[in-house]
């Protein structure tokens, strides 16, 4: 259980957290979403004391997060963390990276039990055949898998994810999210996710807080928050002023940087269907550019269009 009560924090004159109140239940997957600069990463860092806070209180499992170094260290044993840039040690292989936090706690990583544990975690994240690969030999998704195994090695009760999928492409993001879901299901661990990606919240979170300028503007189930979003959230999603046709089927298509094919016009030719474009956008998500398009088609064409899109490897969503 994580309890944040009236938490405030400033960097100089800049107030980054203004009176934050959040309660996260045991075993919950909780999301904190917002734009860059909303204060969400700072908030997450306050939970394991990487960042101090000015006033209010943060309680994790009945223990306050203080500035006392010893208490903080003890608290961190129960909290694993993964990062946007994975933060693996470049000179250690997968196995050694996963074993590292054990060494920080004086746990002998060479005993048969320890070895078993390390190997099991590496298997859990699906990197059995990469046991002794160096981070430089791994893809981003694989590196994050290692980071997840590393974060779990000391059996934490909480896993903190700081923009853990922001540097990954959508497909890998999905895989990582599936892995986090699996970890949650198998270990019953509490997961706190900070992200600016809607997909993350949509796919993973049971509850979500929408943070803007250091204030929690909305909190609740993702579907409650984002199906009928408030103006602020619409603005965050970049969807203000979108009105979609009520007839037929609205399908939202997602394009990544590498999809240069004119899929939509090809589809019109290949399938001989008519459609109208209702809405389109191009967005920057750090390293990647994502395009998105909403088309409206007749109900009878729905199945073959979706099949076609799948065949073309285009991500879609029926709205």
């Amino acid at each position: 259980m994580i309890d944040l009560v009236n938490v405030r924090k400033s960097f100089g004159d800049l107030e980054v957290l203004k009176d934050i109140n959040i309660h996260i239940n045991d075993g919950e997957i909780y999301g904190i979403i917002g734009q860059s600069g909303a204060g969400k990463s700072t908030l997450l860092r306050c939970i394991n004391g990487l960042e101090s806070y000015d006033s209010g209180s943060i309680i994790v499992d009945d223990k306050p997060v203080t500035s006392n170094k010893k208490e903080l260290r003890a608290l961190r044993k129960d909290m694993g963390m993964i990062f946007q840039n994975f933060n693996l040690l470049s000179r250690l292989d997968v196995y050694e990276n996963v074993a590292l936090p054990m060494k920080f706690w004086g746990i002998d990583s060479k005993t048969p039990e320890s070895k078993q544990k390390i190997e099991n975690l590496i298997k859990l994240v699906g990197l059995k055949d990469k046991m002794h690969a160096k981070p430089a030999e791994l893809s981003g998704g694989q590196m994050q898998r290692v980071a997840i195994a590393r974060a779990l090695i000391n059996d934490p009760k909480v896993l903190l994810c700081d923009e853990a999928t922001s540097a990954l492409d959508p497909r890998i993001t999905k895989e990582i999210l599936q892995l986090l879901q699996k970890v949650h299901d198998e270990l019953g661990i509490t997961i706190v996710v900070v992200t600016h990606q809607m997909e993350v919240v949509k796919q993973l979170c049971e509850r979500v807080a929408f943070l803007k300028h250091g204030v929690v503007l909305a909190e609740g189930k993702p579907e409650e928050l984002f199906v009928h979003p408030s103006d602020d959230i619409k603005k965050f999603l970049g969807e203000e002023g979108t009105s979609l046709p009520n007839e037929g089927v609205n399908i939202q298509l997602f394009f990544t940087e590498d999809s240069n094919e004119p899929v939509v016009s090809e589809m019109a030719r290949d399938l001989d269907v008519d459609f109208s474009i209702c809405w389109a956008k191009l967005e920057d998500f750090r390293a990647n550019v994502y395009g998105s398009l909403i088309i409206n088609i007749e109900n009878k064409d729905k199945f073959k269009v979706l099949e076609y899109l799948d065949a073309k490897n285009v991500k879609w969503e029926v709205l």
Partner: protein
Amino acid sequence: MWDVILKATGETLYMVFFSTLIAVLLGMIPAVILTLTAPDGLKPNRVVYGILDVIVNVFRSFPFIILMVIVIPLTRAIAGKSIGTTAALVPLTLYAIPFIARVFENALRETDSGVIEAAKSFGATDMQIIWRVYIKESVPRLLNGITLLIINMVGASAMAGTIGGGGLGDVAIRKGYQSYSVAYLVVTSIILIILVQLVQGIGNALYKKKA
């Protein structure tokens, strides 16, 4: 001629090896302190960093030949005499320590701050972060620094010849320059070139292996 050259090469290697060894061991201490107290370090401390920073800069400002003269009293106190190969180790090491301290500091501070934060988040103590993250992650860069130092020390040890340190530089000056023996000049130069090439080659290979 060849026995003179051989002896001189031995002296050069002796001076370079021991001054490097001592400087690496002693230079790591200020390097770690500088890294910790730097503004982006684990324990930022403007005063400690500032003072140490100035000391390192002051010592690095001296050309070796001047430093050698200035520290003669110290050399005498430590080595018992101010002339000879062993005595030359004192100014050589004093010259090498601030150099390697700065190079090591730069190497250590290049450690990815995210990795340090990750270590912190897993409950690593400051000492564990210094050893397991800063130093171990920086090994290739530290090796590069040592290569650089050795090559510098080959050059400096040649100058040490002027205070009777012996070595290849001494032979080149006395036999080659002052007695007009081109052969000595050429041979000592070639040996110095080979030494530097060898050190750089080994250094590069180690860097690749450890990276």
